């Protein structure tokens, strides 16, 4: 199909023709086109539907501020809803669909809303849909939800990859228009590390859309020259397709680089986008300005667009939006658009200038002191109605209308740290407060300096200033001569007296009437108006709408615009793909894995693994014939109790504590005493938080007078180390103690069961006597095994059996477990996983994570007497508060079902038999439950009010979630060997 609106010239590559489709229809364009420019070239004006009234809409802008021309780009799992056609680079085979319409863009049944608009005024939904109450979720809301929203997500996993990265620079320049280019040149020549980031796919900014000369060069040639120089400087990094979307504390900026969005799909192993975190010592914002419209009745038809955009389409993309256009302006910039289009051979129906003293033109008709009051054309503009200065009304036939209401500096990033811009009367716009942020300066149009000359000059000046902060001396480059036209604007925001609807926020369908209604209903603060009408909440965040609404509010309040206020901007500057923020941290790589030293071996055994924090641990080891996990776990538990089992416990935190005051230090950190622990012995230790609640438990082994090895639970390894460093550095800095984590350095295995000693004797080198007499319960020592491998041996038990933990350098963990399995064959050794570990510890009554959940006191755990009152340890004082010492507090107990076949569920609550199940009668809860193959029934640990005095009592446990209600007998929390005989044999 021919590109009937294509003009001569432009910065497209006519040798590189691209085909694409929109709503299933094929078109062609050129390299250098955006989807919007290519559609316009093909005379497609209707590109979308509005959010609420489903009004037909065409492209409104030529940049990222676009409110109307949103499409679903690509198909399948790569579908991208709400993509602005104005920034989507054309590539061969591009597919786009229109969105928020049914069944088609031209005929959308939801456009019925437009007819009902009187009843759908701002906030109407707060006043209705209340009766009957049950209808909201069932009827009204589903209907509203279906009608709302814009494009569709595919619902499939995003197939593309995203990267993240970090950049550092002396000067970050945001925006590569004239100001930004000169800034980069100035800083680059001075040797500073510079990053120049541009959201467009090519450098030049507004220069690309204009025709003025720089000295005697065409702007494109000047751009090419500067970019050429910059690309040869090793200290300058040039980034196109990169939007700096947010300013954060201390000179950190977020930016997203769209690496491959201009390709059909990313090359293999390359990211779609990269999220950059930029650390900039100084930043220059040269992000330009955004044009704003003038509001009048039916100002939203396809064909109505910003005049500057129209100029950009003509000059940069060689596209006229129609054969005949009109311009509506309140300032001189509108005239420039008319001149450029006229020069390109586009017929100017008339230039309508609201100023009575508008300049005249020999090239086209200028209607001074006139206003456009209405427009016609259902799916595309056909004509506009003009009220002339003398009050008469005239129709102008035109296929497009360019509106020039003045320009707003792009101050967004200056607001991200809650900075508020100030009003500048000269340009009738908000500008950043000059020099308000030492880290971020603003130049060019973003600072309200609209001429090319001012842009160049301020870009260089501000750069020199910024680099001076860093003691880098920079010099003013020879700036080209450029136009220095003063801004000549007579503020004119909206045409009063209209009877119809005049749009402010095009996407969200907020009209002048809505603002007036909000004000009438008492929503007078800007924030209230925004929230009540949804103004500025659409995907464009009101970039072209907000100021117009403020002007109307100012009129209604009888105040000036700055007196009414402004709304500040929050990140991101333009919407950013969620995938980019996640980067590589997704799927299996969401968090790094931690693998135990026996992982490879366990995999070979067919172990089932479970996540424990970032660790993967073997949960159980199924053997042939086992079809249910309980079979495996029961077997593993019984084997430990009967002979010997082995379990990888490397995941426990290990902290090396050394120094002359190591024992004194541990006395502070643990609630029980360590000063008198003999060398070669291990002791169970309980750490409290300063608020008196149990924080963590573990063991401390004294390897020398001045050397302990402390173990922590797997979950708390990191936080306990941090806490101990706090104690060391902040609370007791006078103690001679040094800490370092050794969790990863040692492969540690629990060897548990009556035959564990015999097993170990087969690998421990003969010079180390580990007999019961020589290496008693709770002994520890440094030994060698397997002919000289250094190892540590601890005689500690979590299972209640004779047991040891043996540690070797991590690289030998794999070999050690294989060795132990080999020599253990004669004892029918089994490996056991975390499930069996859990059963064994519940049988023994050891507290673990479910009991040590941060809500338990030592007393609740039955360890109240461990808290030494003779020394100052963390948590001792506040553990003594009355509520924590109360008689009827919870205590750890054991539970057994009255009927052995009943299963106790962890998380069930305890009640007296006969009491109704409700919160008043709640007496506690089950913390851990398991089937005990040793007991032959379900068993559990629980916290029960006054539990220590209630052994033998029959209660019921209820879990309404599971419809469970069974009777249990309260016992001591030790189901095996309460006297600890087995430990000591």
């Amino acid at each position, binding site marked *: 199909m021919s590109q009937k609106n294509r003009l001569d010239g432009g910065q497209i590559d006519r040798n590189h023709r691209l085909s694409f489709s929109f709503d299933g229809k094929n078109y062609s364009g050129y390299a250098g086109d955006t989807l919007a420019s290519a559609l316009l070239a093909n005379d497609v004006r209707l590109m979308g539907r509005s959010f609420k009234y489903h009004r037909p809409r065409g492209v409104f802008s030529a940049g990222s501020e676009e409110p109307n021309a949103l499409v679903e780009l690509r198909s399948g799992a790569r579908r991208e809803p709400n993509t602005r056609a104005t920034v989507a680079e054309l590539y061969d085979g591009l597919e786009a669909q229109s969105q928020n319409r049914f069944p088609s863009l031209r005929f959308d049944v939801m456009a019925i809303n437009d007819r009902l608009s009187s009843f759908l005024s701002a906030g109407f939904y707060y006043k209705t849909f209340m009766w009957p109450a049950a209808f909201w979720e069932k009827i009204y809301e589903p209907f509203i939800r279906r009608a709302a929203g814009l494009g569709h997500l595919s619902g499939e996993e995003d197939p593309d990859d995203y990267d993240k990265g970090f950049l550092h620079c002396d000067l970050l320049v945001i925006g590569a228009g004239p100001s930004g280019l000169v800034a980069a040149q100035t800083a680059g020549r001075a040797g500073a590390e510079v990053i120049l980031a541009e959201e467009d796919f090519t450098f030049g900014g507004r220069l690309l859309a204009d025709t003025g000369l720089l000295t005697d060069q065409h702007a494109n040639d000047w751009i090419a020259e500067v970019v050429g120089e910059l690309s040869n400087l090793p200290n300058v990094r040039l980034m196109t397709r990169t939007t700096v979307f947010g300013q954060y504390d201390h000179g950190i900026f977020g930016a997203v680089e769209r690496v491959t969005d201009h390709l059909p799909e990313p090359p293999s192993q390359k990211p779609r986008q990269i999220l950059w975190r930029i650390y900039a010592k100084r930043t220059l914002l040269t992000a330009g300005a955004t044009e704003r419209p003038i509001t009048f009745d039916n100002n939203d038809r396809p064909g109505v667009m910003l005049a500057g955009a129209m100029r950009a389409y003509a000059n940069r993309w060689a596209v006229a939006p129609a054969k005949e256009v009109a311009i509506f302006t309140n300032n001189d910039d509108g005239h420039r658009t008319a001149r450029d289009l006229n020069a390109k051979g586009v017929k100017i129906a008339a230039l309508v200038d609201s100023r009575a003293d508008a300049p005249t033109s020999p090239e086209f008709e200028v209607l001074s002191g006139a206003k456009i009051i209405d427009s016609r054309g259902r799916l595309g503009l056909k004509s506009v109605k003009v009220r002339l200065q003398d009050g008469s009304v005239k129709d102008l036939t035109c296929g497009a209308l360019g509106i020039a209401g003045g320009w707003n500096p792009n101050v967004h990033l200056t607001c991200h740290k809650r900075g508020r811009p100030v009003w500048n009367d000269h340009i009738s716009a908000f500008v950043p407060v000059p020099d308000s942020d030492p880290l971020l300066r603003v130049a060019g149009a973003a600072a309200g300096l609209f001429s090319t000359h001012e842009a160049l000059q301020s870009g260089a000046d501000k750069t020199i200033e910024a680099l001076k902060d860093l003691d880098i001396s920079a010099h003013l480059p020879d700036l080209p001569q450029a136009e220095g036209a003063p801004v000549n604007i007579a503020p004119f925001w909206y045409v009063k007296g209209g009877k119809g609807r005049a749009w402010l926020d095009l996407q969200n369908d907020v009209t002048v009437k809505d603002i007036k209604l909000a004000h009438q209903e008492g929503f007078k603060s800007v924030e209230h108006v925004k929230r009540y009408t949804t103004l500025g909440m659409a995907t464009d965040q009101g970039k072209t709408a907000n100021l117009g609404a403020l002007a109307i509010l100012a009129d209604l309040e009888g105040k000036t615009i700055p007196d009414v206020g402004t709304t500040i901007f929050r990140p991101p500057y333009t919407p950013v793909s969620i995938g980019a923020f996640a980067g590589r941290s997704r799927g299996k790589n969401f968090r790094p894995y931690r693998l135990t030293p026996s992982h490879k071996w366990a995999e070979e055994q067919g172990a089932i693994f479970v996540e424990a924090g970032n660790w993967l641990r073997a949960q159980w080891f199924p053997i042939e014939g086992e079809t249910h996990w309980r079979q495996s776990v029961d077997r593993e538990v019984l084997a430990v109790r009967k002979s010997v089992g082995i379990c990888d416990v490397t995941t426990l935190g290990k902290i090396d504590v050394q120094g002359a005051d190591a024992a004194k230090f541990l006395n502070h950190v643990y609630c029980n005493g360590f000063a008198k622990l003999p060398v070669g012995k291990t002791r169970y230790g309980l750490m409290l938080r300063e608020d008196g609640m149990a924080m963590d438990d573990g063991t401390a082994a004294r390897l020398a007078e001045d050397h302990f090895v402390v173990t922590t639970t797997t979950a708390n390894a990191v936080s306990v180390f941090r806490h101990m460093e706090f104690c060391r550095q902040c609370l007791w800095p006078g103690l001679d103690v040094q800490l370092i984590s050794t969790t990863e*350095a040692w492969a540690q295995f629990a060897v548990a069961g009556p035959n564990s000693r015999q097993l170990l004797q087969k690998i421990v080198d003969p010079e180390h006597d580990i007999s019961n007499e020589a290496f008693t319960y709770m002994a520890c020592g440094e030994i060698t095994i397997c002919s000289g491998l250094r190892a540590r041996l601890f005689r500690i038990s979590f299972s209640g059996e004779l047991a040891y933990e043996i540690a070797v350098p991590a690289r030998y963990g794999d070999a050690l477990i294989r060795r132990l399995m080999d020599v253990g064959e004669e004892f029918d050794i089994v490996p056991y996983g975390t499930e069996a570990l859990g059963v064994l510890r519940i049988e023994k009554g050891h507290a673990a994570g479910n009991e040590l959940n941060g809500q338990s006191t030592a007393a609740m755990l039955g360890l109240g007497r461990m808290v030494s009152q003779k020394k100052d340890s963390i948590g001792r004082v506040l553990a003594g508060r009355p509520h924590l010492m109360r008689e009827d507090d919870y205590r750890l107990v054991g539970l057994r079902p009255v009927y052995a076949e009943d299963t106790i569920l962890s998380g069930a609550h305890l009640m007296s038999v006969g009491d109704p199940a409700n919160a008043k009668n709640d007496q506690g809860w089950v913390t851990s439950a398991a089937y005990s193959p040793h007991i032959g029934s379900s068993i559990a640990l629980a916290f029960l009010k006054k539990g220590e005095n209630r052994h033998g009592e029959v209660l019921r446990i209820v879990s309404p979630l599971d419809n469970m209600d069974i009777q249990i007998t309260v016992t001591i929390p030790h189901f095996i060997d309460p006297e600890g005989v087995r430990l000591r044999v």
Partner: protein
Amino acid sequence: MSENLLAPLTALGKTVPVIKKIGGITISENPDLAIVSLSARMGTEQDLQNLLKPLLGACLPGPGQAQFAEDITAIWVGVHQWFLMASLSDHPDYADEINNFVTDAASVTEQSDGWAVFDITGDNLVPLLERICNLNSKAMSSGDATRCLIEHLGCLIICRESVRNFTILGPRSSAASLHHTFVTAAHSVA
């Protein structure tokens, strides 16, 4: 110790180190590194400096620095705390060796097996490094060494030669995840 009957595995769980070449970047696992930590006892910092000076041929390095000597590297890792690194095959019992050497001037802890060690070399590693950690790698020169975060993992990065040669230590248990990060990033920038 090397005489014992058990066979070690590398951090990536292999019997031989994994070496990958991607584009101009080489990522090599280095299992032959003995590492000990050395923390000065209270008030013994100077004694420790004096003791180690002959060994290092220089003072123990300051914050953010490494000191490379003939067969030993010292790295500052914290206040009054250093890592000493040497060839594991030459120094199989390095912790004992150092402990005997410094006696009461420092607390010595075996660290060799706590870390997975990767040597990364190439003509320009900056594009790779800027994808994985927030250090200004372009500005790092030989002897710079510091901890940093790489894909949620606390690592130690040592610059051996500006831009071209870095050693990165990460937690041993996460060797596979860390290696995956390097490889993926290398493909991305290759």
